[in-house]
Structures are given as C-alpha cells and as structure tokens.
C-alpha cells in the first residue's frame, strides 16, 4: 500500500456537516477562552489581595482545560481513533515538532509544566533574566510580563528549562520590599536602626501582619542598612519603597547620620 493511501486512511473524509461541526467547535472554544479570560480578568481587577490573585491564577488553567476538551472532541472527527491510526498520527506530529517546531514545542510543553506546577501565576511579580514585572497573562507559549515602566514583555516558557525564575510573592497578595541606606560608618547604630523601624511602622502602606526588619551590614566604605517590610498590596511596592526611602533619609538626616559618598575602594558587594 502506498504511503499516500496510508495517510488518507488515517484521516476521515470530511463531509460538509463534519466540517461545519469542526468550525463550530473551534469557534466555540476560541469564544469561550476569550470570554473566560476577559471576564475573569475584569472580575479579578475589581477584587483585592489574595482573592484577586487566586482568580487570575485560574485563567491559564481554565484555558488549558478548554483547549484539551476541544481537542478531545475534534480528534475523533478527523481520524478513526484506532491504536494504529493514533500511533501513526503521533509519529507524524512528533517528527514535525522535533525538526521544524522544536523551540515552539519546547515552549508549549514548558507552558503546560508552568501552569501545572504554578511556577508563576497572573498577578505574581517575577524576575526572568533581567526582566522584572507583574505577570499579566500566562499563555501556552509565552508569559506576558508588564514592567514598572509599563513595557509589555513576552517571555517564552522555554526559559524555564535553563533559567532561574525569581517569584517575589508566589501567589500571595504581599511581597517584601527592601529600602537601602548607605551611611558613613561613624554614627549611632542603635538610634539609626530605631529610626528606620519607626519609618516603616509609620508608613501608610505598611501591612502589619508581616514583620518589619532592619538588617545592617558593615562594608569597607560605610554601613549598609536594609529596611525590610511588606506593603498592604504588591501593586503598592514602588510607592511603598519610595515612601520608606524618602522618610528614611529624612529620619537619618535628623539624627545627624552622614550618608556615605561614592566608595573609594570597593571589595566586592
């Protein structure tokens, strides 16, 4: 039997009714995905905190379920679902993906893994390579991140295989912010630490159920203070950080703590 005949045998002959059904399923699934995505994003943006993140995180999962369900209905329309046919079809698809669409397939599989493992979800603040931003959309092939500068960055999921993913809030509504202060080594450290703690405690953005901490590191050029605290909502992180920095500098200045100037010699970090 000629190979052409074999391939023809795998696929069913499409009559107009089946073709119509096929189009209807594809259109229906696409419509459902669009509606679900828009609706859940609309609802999510009206909620706060963990409710918002939980809802947004469900979007890619629901989309995957719709795609798989549509595929499960479409495949029996196109081929005779026998073992022989399935093996033949999968072989063809495997060869095609392996040679022509290797990277695309890798991203698709990584996308399914990311959705399953929940490495990042909508609303998470992630850092991949040099890109830091809020996850707005977890597609099947790419991840859409919006940076603080309002840039939209599309990152292929395939990066998961080789790159570290830094997730700042990991599904939580809050993330830790760190304000850095570099001061001259000769000063009253107790007073400076207390002042910085009060700066955090008096920030209107502070979330009180998470700890406030001041970490002090002595460097060859001075003293490095890191004020760590959590804002009420992850979206407030930059306003929170600005507030901590501005008021922290004022508080240290009022204490007479001199700020460090550019280091003359730097031994690493």
């Amino acid at each position: 039997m000629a190979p052409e005949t074999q391939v023809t045998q795998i696929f069913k002959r499409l009559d107009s009714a089946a073709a119509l059904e096929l189009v209807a399923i594809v259109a229906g699934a696409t419509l459902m995905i669009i509606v679900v995505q828009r609706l859940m994003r609309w609802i999510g943006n009206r909620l706060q905190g963990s409710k918002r993140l939980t809802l947004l995180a469900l979007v890619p999962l629901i989309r995957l379920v719709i795609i798989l369900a549509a595929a499960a209905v479409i495949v029996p329309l196109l081929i005779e679902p026998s073992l022989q046919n399935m093996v033949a079809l999968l072989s063809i698809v495997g060869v095609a993906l392996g040679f022509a669409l290797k990277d695309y397939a890798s991203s698709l599989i990584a996308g399914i893994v990311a959705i399953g493992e929940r490495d990042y979800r909508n609303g998470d603040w992630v850092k991949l390579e040099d890109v830091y931003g809020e996850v707005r959309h977890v597609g099947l092939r790419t991840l859409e991140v919006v940076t603080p500068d309002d840039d939209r960055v599309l990152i292929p999921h395939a990066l998961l295989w080789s790159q570290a993913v830094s997730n700042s809030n990991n599904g939580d509504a809050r993330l830790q912010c760190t304000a850095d202060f570099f001061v001259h080594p000769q000063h009253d450290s107790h007073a400076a630490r207390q002042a910085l703690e009060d700066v955090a405690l008096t920030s209107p953005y502070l979330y009180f159920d998470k700890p406030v901490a001041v970490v002090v590191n002595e460097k060859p050029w001075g003293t490095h203070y890191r004020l760590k605290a959590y804002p009420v909502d992850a979206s407030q992180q930059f306003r929170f950080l600005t507030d901590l920095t501005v008021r922290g500098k004022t508080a240290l200045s009022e204490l007479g703590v001199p700020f460090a100037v550019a280091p003359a010699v730097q031994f690493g970090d």
Partner: protein
Amino acid sequence: MLTLEQETPETALWEFVPLASYGVPALPARSAARNAWISFKRVFWRTDQGTEAPIKQEANLRALSQVRLQHLFRPLDWHAAAAALDQLLGDWWAADEPEPPVKFIIGQPHGGHREIVRRWGERRQAAQIATPSCEQILARDQHWFDDGPPTGERWVLPGLEHCYLRHANGLDLVRRLFQRAESGRLGRGVIGCDSWAWAYLQRVWPVPRPDALTLQAFDGPRLARLLSRLTVSPAGGRVRFRHAVTGNDILIVPAEQERFGPEIVQLAAHCRGNVGVALRHWRERLCCEPDADASKPNGREALPRTDEQTGEQTGEQAEESVWVAAELTAPVLPLGSEDDFALVLHALLLHGGLPEALLPDLLPLSPPLCAALLYRLRNAGFVEFGEGRWHVAVLAYAAVRDLLRRRDYLVDGF
C-alpha cells in the same frame, strides 16, 4: 415584632466588658444576603456620586427637622455610661496598690469613649490630662509630662488617640507615656482610647492589655431599650415608629409590653454595636408626611409641636406616628484613585480625626492633592469637620470600615 426581656444586670443598658468579650451583633440571614448583594454591586458596578442618587426617599415623606428631632429625642446621657464604668472600676480605684496602675477604656469612633472617661473623671474628681499639641508630639517635647498632675494625684486621659502621630517623630511621646504608665510612675489613672488608634498602638507598644475595657455592643434589644428611653412621647400619648414602606410598627414608646421590629436588629448589626453610629442612623431615617403649615408662602417652618405630627387620635390618648425610612443611608465613594481615598480615610481613623494642615506630613501625598481628596470626600459625605479636625462622617463609618477591611488595611478589633 420581637419582645424585650426584662432588664437584668446581664442585660443592663450600659455595660463595660473586656475587649475580648465584645460581641458584634449578628445580622439576620436575610439581611446578610441582602448586604452581600449590595457589597457585590458596590464592587462590580462602581458609579460616581453624581450618577447614583444616595438613597431614594420614600415618596411623599420628608426628613424630620432638627427642631423636631430635638423635641422627639433626649440627648444621649453619657453620665449613665460613666456610672456603669464607675461600678466596675470602684474597687480598683479604692485599692491602695492596685494592679495594674493604669486602666484603658477603648471605644469605637463616635462611640463616646472620650465623654465617658471625662465624666467618670469628674465623678471621681480626678485631674484631667490635656492631650499634647501636634507640634509637641512631633518635637518629642517631654515637657508635656511636666504639665500633668502632681505625683500621687489621680488622673484621667480621655483621648489617647490625640497623643501620637503616625510619623517617624510622632511615636516617641506615646511610647514614653506607655512606659511610665506601665511602670507606675504616672500613678493611678484611666486612659480612654479610640479603637483604631488602639489597634495601631498595640503594634507600636506591643504589650498586651487583656484588662482593657470597652462598652458592650448595643445589639437589637439593648438598642431598642435605649431608643425607648431617649424618645420623648407627647403628654399622655405615645410615639409609633413605623416602617415607611410596609407600615409595620418598629417601636412603640411607651408600650405595656416593650417590643421592637427586626429593623432595629439590622441597624445594630450594620453599626456593629456602635451606639453613636446607630443613634445617628436612626435619627437620619426618621421622616414624616409633609405638613401643610411647613409649605406656607412665608417659608417659615411649622411650630415644633405640630411640625410633622400626624395627629392621630385614638380615644383620649394622643398618638404620633413617625415613619422610618426603609433604607440605611450609605455614601458612595467618588470615582478616582481608591488607593488615595483609602489612605486619607485610614489616617483620619487612626488618629481620631486630623487637622487638614497635618495630612501632607503623614501621607505621601502633596498638600494640594490632600486638600482635593479631602474636599471630594466631604462632598461625597465621607468626612466632616468638627472641633478643628476632619473626621470620618458618622453615616459613612460602616462603609469606610468595610472598604479598609476589604483592602487589608489595619482595622480596629470591633
């Protein structure tokens, strides 16, 4: 109609309990579902104040005038609350070396904690400590302690919420106050504090005070009893408070058997047992049929005796009907940055009100923006000005608390 039980010591009108024993009045299931629907609508169909009328008044009814309200209600007597507090603190006050030396009385906004502590202090002839000025707080001016009563004299400090500012320089004085109070250096005294300031100060000075007292919640029966006592009925007659839509009796004063409608339970639950807020809502909901005299061409208001009086006569007993609007008044947040509105409202609550000039020092917002936000909130009915400070308006308090709780801001423990 629900029936009031006989008053027992357990159900006394004014009762002070430890903070942990405060019981927020529960909402009936039907009302809870309705409130959930209203909250849902508020989240998903946000509209501007201009596009949504606050609450539609029942047709053909108008709100009671201030004059009529003054004749219909006696003012709330905080002396009774102070007497209840006195009963509880009497032994402690009389003891030679009581432990702890300082007691805290916590009250919700508009719940009258300052008046109660002040009156209790007068009753016990205790010196009253004035709160420091904002300048003193920010300057960490410890001379404030020198202005206090001499050593050994007993004292009250009615408004702890005005002794600190949420500012890097604004916590020092209140921390020293706590330190002196805990160590006994301040002698014996009673400190009144707003519940929001207390929630915040517990993070600044994390020493648990399970002995802190608060006024027990005014649930349905307690509130109905208070409303009955405050209502002034016409000589030899009675006042019927009737639902404006159904016409059902909500409260009759006086009545042989004291009974009240479920609307009072709903009101108590809506206000979370806050007596000041509940009374204001009750007064706002009262309305009457328009009086022909009130619309005379000269525009003069009718005399208090006849104003809004329906004049129903049943035999020899005069009976007056006062209608109670079906809906609770709730303002709608103006469109705009909800984040910034929340910051302003939260700051006002944490400090028990703030002067306008101080807001830019406490918030990361410019002075013009602070002023603009404040006046937009005022126009929407969220804040009001009084005693030199901007406060969250009484009628908006429940909505503001709900907004801040939903957004995960620090809220009070009530």
